[in-house]
């Protein structure tokens, strides 16, 4: 995969933190600038040509997103500020009528805080309960336990497609099937899946799918919520404001049609345009090629890391993509992070916004590397060299 030339920033750093955010290819950076230089106007408003042009470009990205995740209708694609807002939107809107007092929401033990806290907020408000789907020591969902968690009170399942810590690709198609047998809708947090796998929301049959532009080589500040038409129609608006209305009077306001009902205010137009270019870029490379490339890196890195004594990897599912979290003896991840940073290697150290998962594995923190399309075997070599320096600093030797 010969893409490094597209990422100017990589000349300066060995970047192993794509799970946090990916670097941006020059084409995305240029497109944002070009939009402001040539096409900037507010959308869905102006009668003038410039505004129409901006609107057309913006709406074209909705079409691109629809095709990218294989949704049926572009009105099922809602632009948000990110995965977090997408999930909050669904949680808040469903708390008005679908989820009620004493109802149960199922989430897994490997969720990111952004797929825990929005549900806790509404659960506390309305008196609903959160039940946790357990995971195995390998870092996989316990499907049998999941099946048994359903009761007549279960109203929602919210689960991640790919774990940001363990790298596990969850069997969400099967989970969605089980949930639907129980007449329960499913929200999938796809933030860590969309950049790495070809996602087909129609085939998965999920009710909601949330992801972020900035983890898929696009700009920050933009996210996507896919929702099935039937649910989006049933849900009340999330925020009020311009763009989401049809008619406003002081007595009564009627809301705009889908998807605009959920897009109050001026969206992040330039960055949505940037996301469109990122999708084109990914399509040019091909999602299949990306998955294969990252799987290869995962295999090499896992093998190399396992040679290091006292290094323990968390998340050893066979269905795993390019994320490796580990601990190294009793050396704290922040000390590892500082030493690697000194060697110009960027990794993530900490709880990865998944404190309950850290508790599940009984560690306060982990060091995580995560791959993107631009990583190479050389990056892994450098990482291993960096870890040898960690050992030297802490007076240990690795063979």
């Amino acid at each position: 995969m010969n893409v490094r030339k597209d990422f100017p920033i990589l000349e300066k750093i060995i970047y192993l933190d794509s799970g946090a955010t990916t670097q941006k290819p020059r084409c995305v950076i240029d497109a944002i600038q070009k939009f402001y230089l040539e096409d900037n106007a507010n959308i869905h408003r102006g009668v003038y040509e410039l505004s129409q042009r901006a609107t057309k470009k913006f709406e074209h990205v909705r079409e691109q997103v629809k095709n990218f995740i294989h949704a049926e209708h572009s009105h099922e694609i809602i632009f948000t500020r990110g995965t977090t807002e997408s999930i909050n939107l669904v949680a808040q809107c469903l708390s008005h009528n679908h989820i009620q007092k004493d109802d149960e929401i199922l989430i897994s033990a490997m969720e990111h805080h952004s797929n825990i806290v929005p549900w806790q907020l509404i659960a506390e408000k309305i008196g609903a309960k959160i039940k946790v789907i357990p995971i195995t020591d390998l870092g996989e969902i316990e499907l049998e336990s999941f099946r048994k968690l359903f009761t007549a009170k279960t109203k929602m399942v919210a689960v991640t497609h790919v774990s940001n810590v363990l790298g596990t690709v969850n069997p969400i198609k099967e989970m969605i099937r089980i949930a639907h047998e129980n007449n329960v809708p499913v929200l999938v947090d796809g933030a860590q899946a969309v950049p790495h796998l070809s996602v087909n929301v129609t085939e998965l049959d999920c009710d909601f799918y949330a992801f972020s532009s900035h983890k898929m080589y696009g700009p920050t500040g933009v996210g996507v919520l896919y929702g099935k038409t039937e649910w989006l129609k049933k849900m009340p608006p999330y925020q009020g404001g311009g763009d989401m209305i049809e008619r406003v009077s002081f007595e009564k306001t009627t809301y705009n049609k889908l998807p605009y009902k959920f897009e109050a205010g001026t969206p992040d137009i330039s960055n949505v345009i940037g996301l469109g270019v990122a999708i084109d870029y990914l399509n040019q490379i091909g999602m299949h090629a990306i998955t294969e490339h990252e799987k290869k890196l995962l295999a090499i890195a896992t093998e190399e890391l396992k040679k290091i004594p006292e290094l323990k990897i968390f998340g050893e599912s066979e269905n795993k993509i390019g994320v490796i979290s580990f601990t190294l003896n009793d050396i704290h991840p922040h000390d590892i992070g500082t030493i690697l940073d000194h060697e110009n290697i960027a990794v993530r150290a900490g709880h990865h916004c998944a404190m309950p998962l850290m508790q599940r594995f009984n560690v306060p923190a982990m060091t995580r590397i995560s791959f993107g399309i631009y990583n190479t075997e050389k990056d892994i070599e450098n990482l291993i060299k960096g870890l040898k320096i960690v050992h030297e600093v802490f007076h240990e030797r690795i063979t």
Partner: protein
Amino acid sequence: MNELRELYQEMIIEHGRHPRNFCVLENASCKQEGFNPLCGDHLILFLIEKNGVIENISFQGSGCAISMASASLMTDAVKNKSIKEAEKLFQQFHLLITENKSEENLGKLAVLAGVSEFPARVKCATLAWHTLKAALQNETQTVSTE
């Protein structure tokens, strides 16, 4: 490599692994928690203060080598000091780890001077100190340096 050696000196690694005064003080007159939620460094400080003097001090917790070593060295440094002396020591220490300046001999605390080259780690080195300060001011809220 030199900056790293400067940061992770022998004494820091040793104190990080085997912190001093690492226990619960059953008869503590004051107990204060320090927690940096983003990085996870966590400690609870126990104090016995009498007539403006820190008669005994201990801590428990977990975190990176810098935070644990700093807490360990701090407890050694402020034991049997007056509150005023401890506060002055904190000022001096802060100057050392942020600007690498020292006006007085800080004894063993000086091994943390290397932190000044790593601004992201100042919060690790100061967590115990801010927790001590809060304890001495009778604050009840958990302290964070993030």
